[in-house]
């Protein structure tokens, strides 16, 4: 089937989509957007997190057909043409990236948290990132990165 959707502000037509196909697969293999990572395929790890109509979801649990006419933002859509998004820059600066596999999902989850809670506490961050597993860094630097991103966003005029 054909699925027409908006991804990162662009209208995208995905062809030959299998009816049981996940949005994650469609984004990676058909839309050429491999930022969302394919890991657990059961909503456990959060590596495939994207915004669907402004709400963070595991794209592996969304049937591609369910995204027809919806608005999707992937990690590729966070940065501008010239600059990383503040959350991305903070992850780099805080050293919150090791192998990087979980990072796209963490970036979307952290981006959403800071939009909702401009000055998140440690428990706020732990709660918001509870569905994003990282097997390398041990989360401390990820916590630092979210605080850094929030502080910088708050400091901006």
């Amino acid at each position: 089937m054909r699925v027409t959707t908006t991804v990162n502000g662009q209208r995208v037509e995905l062809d030959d989509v299998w009816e049981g196909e996940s949005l994650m697969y469609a984004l990676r293999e058909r839309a050429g957007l491999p930022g969302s990572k394919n890991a657990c395929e059961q909503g456990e790890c959060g590596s495939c997190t994207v915004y669907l109509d402004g709400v963070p979801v595991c794209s592996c649990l969304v049937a591609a057909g369910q995204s027809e006419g919806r608005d999707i933002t992937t990690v590729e859509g966070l940065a501008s043409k010239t600059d990383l998004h503040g959350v991305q820059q903070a992850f780099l600066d805080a050293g919150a990236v090791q192998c990087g596999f979980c990072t796209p999902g963490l970036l979307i989850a952290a981006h959403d948290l800071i939009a909702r809670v401009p000055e998140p506490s440690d428990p706020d961050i732990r709660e918001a990132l509870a569905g994003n597993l990282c097997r390398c860094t041990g989360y401390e630097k990820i916590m630092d990165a979210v605080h850094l991103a929030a502080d910088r966003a708050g400091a901006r005029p």
Partner: protein
Amino acid sequence: MDFACPRTWAEALEVQAQEPDTVPICGGTDVMVDVNFDRRRPAALLDLTRVRDLQGWSHRDGRIVLGAGVTYARVIDELGDRLPGLAMAARTVGSPQIRNRGTVGGNLGAASPAGDSHPPLLATETVVVAESVRGARRIEIADFYTGVKRNALEPDELIREIEVEVAGGPQQFSKIGPRNAMVIAVAGFALALHPDVRRVGTGLGSASPTPRRAAEAEVFVAAEFDERGLWESRSELPESVAEEFGRRVGLATEPIDDVRGSAAYRKHAISVLARRALTWAWSDYRRHRL
């Protein structure tokens, strides 16, 4: 495989009636896992996320009528005051991403003994409204669960809404798992005090082939409260009553050994959860809190 995305409820019922091997999908948190892992290849997926009738809730005769497509995130944000037990359970479901998509209707459709919605729905008066092209029918929650991951729905029926009694007293939910997030309950328990009818409702999860009530323990605790005049006096709950209540809830379990826990552990854990839940709810009641 077919993929149907009806805009109206009538259209959805038509699709379900035409092909019984059609699997309804909302949040996809169970259905897509099975499809991703090749465990299930239904003839068709029926996307219900565009059916407007399922996406809202309303207040009717002291009950909340919850559309089958209302997400856990919305139950938490919008219904925490009226359905505190269900909202507490919803807060323990998966992660933010899962709560943004998963629905109470989907939890009922999957009917897993470990589903977090079931205990609070059992602890209070709940009716599942199922519908097909043949008409609608109301199913009492206790009759809804018929076996492991099986429910009372006919192949052509879909869940339209869930009617849940608005809390008339304190409610509690707790569950055991290895983490504070992304946990499938090793054991779960919900309790609701119904002071108006002098009843204590219970719901057990992950403790038997289907979610169930601990009926005998409910009768025991109601009799103890009556005998001791506790509903009126709101005096302290004797520890022996809480302890015996927990023991009797444990007797209502029929747990299994599996990768998440042993049967013996589950029975013990449920007893402890039940004792604590009663103690917490009673202390809320004594403080005149809802």
